[in-house]
């Protein structure tokens, strides 16, 4: 059963969770044997940009280690066989060029999204 996880809401507690919770659960279920791909749209397309850097978080004397590394998490997904799609128009409207994007990302037009959906047994919009 192939499942496509669609992520449009970005940075949902990424600092508290040290990751995106949907990318995380996708990797966890991938580890349990599931076949998952991911489609990023809206602000979530920023997850595939290179050069992301999250500065260390500190409140008072409490310094937080292990900031989220969303690009690394996306690459880890792909290294286990997942396809990661991004909606081209959402990249373009944010001024993100393909030379600023992690290699191996599948860029698709918004009008191709329904066709991509049809190629999966399950589509879950998170």
């Amino acid at each position, binding site marked *: 059963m192939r499942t496509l996880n669609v992520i449009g809401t970005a940075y949902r507690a990424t600092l508290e969770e040290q990751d995106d919770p949907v990318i995380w659960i996708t990797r966890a*279920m991938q*580890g349990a044997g599931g076949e998952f791909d991911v489609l990023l749209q809206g602000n979530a397309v920023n997850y595939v940009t290179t050069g992301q850097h999250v500065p260390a978080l500190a409140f008072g004397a409490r310094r937080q280690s292990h900031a989220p590394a969303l690009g690394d998490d996306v690459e880890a997904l792909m290294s286990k066989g997942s396809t990661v799609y991004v909606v081209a128009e959402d990249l373009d409207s944010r001024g993100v060029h393909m030379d600023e994007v992690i290699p191996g990302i599948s860029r698709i037009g918004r009008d191709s999204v329904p066709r991509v959906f049809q190629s999966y047994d*399950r589509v879950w919009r998170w």
Partner: protein
Amino acid sequence: MSKRTTLTFALMDAPFESARTTTAMRMIDVATRRGYDVNIFAYEGAVGLSFAHQKRHANAVHGRDADQEDHPLTREWVVALLEQAAQTGGRLDWVNCGLCCDERGALDHVPGVRRGSPADFWRMASSSDNTLVIATR
């Protein structure tokens, strides 16, 4: 004999913050009334839905004491749904994401709810007729 319908829901919203929670409960209610097998995976803030220490409160703005206010508690809804599923011959398997419980200190839950992981969600979805994700926005 036809196979019983099995549905899985992934919930993500914390209680008392979004109408999506009530909508999800309405769908679970219909499914359990029909005797379906229903799986719930409560992820992130949704683990609070079954938290055992939810308490009623009075509401001075409404001018009612705690008994009069009869404030809704999602833990009671969860119990009611578990009981309904048992009465209609269906099954309601409510699984909380264990790590999500730990990070929130939400360790005490109503009876009938169990602790699990994303692997449970994957297994439940794999054996279901359909799965609906109701995520936080």
